[in-house]
């Protein structure tokens, strides 16, 4: 018998601190697989966020740098400027990318920095205990919206992939989901595409990944996947919102 599925080179064989059923684990593996399939591990540099994925540097066998909460795009910009041949990517949660760090996100995208952003949208702040994120669904109960996200107070969830697609500097913007096997496969393809865009020097690429946080959704892992499929995609439609050469 032949091994048809195993841990890829870039994914360290170690215990992760993620909760059972957390999407970060799946996303980590997909990123590692893409990097290995593209053969770019030896020139790739990652930027880890502040969020549940802060320890990503323990899980990927890559050169990785920590960035203050929300600032990975700025850190990545600095890195890429040193050696444009490096493949530089950030991995960020919705609090990191779309709340505190949205200015860095938008300006980095607008400049068309040739980097890749892996954006984990789990509709909550995981690390700090399940507070509202900019992507929290309308009516969703969180630690800071005890009666559910109130649209009158907080407005609607932010559509990062669509919004960034408006910027000429963005070459690839897509939303995918870790909700089932076909969508996980699509997610991997999108991640690969995003890295390829960078390898081709085309500018900013982002993949928004709808990802389960069973803990703060107060659901089982299986229920969480169902929630993505049945609820979350209604607010956050999947698809490619931009794919082109750098303007």
């Amino acid at each position: 018998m032949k091994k048809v599925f195993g841990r890829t080179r870039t994914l360290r064989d170690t215990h992760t601190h993620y909760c059972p059923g957390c999407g970060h684990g799946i996303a980590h593996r997909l990123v590692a697989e893409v990097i290995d399939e593209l053969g770019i591990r030896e020139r790739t540099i990652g930027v880890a966020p502040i969020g549940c994925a802060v320890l990503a540097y323990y899980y990927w066998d890559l050169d990785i740098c920590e960035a203050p909460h929300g600032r990975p795009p700025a850190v990545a910009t600095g890195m890429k400027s040193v050696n444009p041949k490096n493949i530089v990517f950030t991995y960020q949660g919705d609090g990191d990318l779309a709340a505190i760090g949205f200015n860095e996100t938008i300006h980095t995208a607008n400049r068309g920095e040739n980097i890749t952003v892996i954006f984990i949208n789990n509709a909550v702040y995981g690390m700090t205990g399940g507070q509202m994120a900019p992507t929290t669904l309308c009516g969703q109960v969180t630690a800071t919206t005890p009666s559910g996200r109130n649209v009158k107070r907080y407005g609607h969830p932010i559509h990062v992939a669509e919004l960034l697609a408006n910027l000429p500097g963005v070459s690839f913007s897509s939303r995918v989901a870790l909700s089932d096997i076909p969508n996980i496969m699509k997610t991997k393809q999108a991640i690969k595409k995003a890295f390829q865009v960078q390898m081709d020097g085309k500018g900013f690429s982002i993949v928004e990944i709808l990802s389960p946080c069973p803990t703060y959704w107060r659901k089982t892992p299986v229920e969480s996947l169902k929630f993505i499929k049945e609820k979350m995609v209604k607010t956050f439609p999947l698809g490619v919102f931009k794919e082109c050469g750098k303007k």
Partner: protein
Amino acid sequence: MREEIVAAGFGGQGVMLIGKILAYAGMLEGKQVTYFPSYGAEVRGGTANSTTIISTAEIPTPVSRHPDVLLAMNSPSCKKFGSRLKKGGLLIANSSLIENVFKRSDLTIIKIPATSLANNLGNKRSANMIMIGAYLKYKAIVSLKSVEKAFLILLPGKKDLWDINKKALRLGME
């Protein structure tokens, strides 16, 4: 008198509630008390623990390096905190989930199959009360009455829940 109690286990086993109930009961009896949870990133991965101190004197810190008592609800926490117990300390182990209890000859070790007992009782979630019961049986650090009061203050309006949990508590005390 001063008693430092660590309760530890999985998230969801109610170890935080153990600590809070004991602290509240202590307070109701006019003692000085502190309760200190594990928090933040430590919580990921499903482990949880809390420290309760009950004392007749001022409590300088709610943190305990060498607790007097460990209520261990699962195996990893039994290992982790068992080694830190004070010399001669008391370890109460949920033997349903802990196969090999930590070995230290100086400790008083009480094994109680809290999870199975709770399952038998028909209320999985009351294993924590069984642990409290076992502890109170061994050391009457607070009275059963105070525990009842504390429970009802902490879970207001849950009188029915108390009835089941009281059974669990008594079971532990048997």
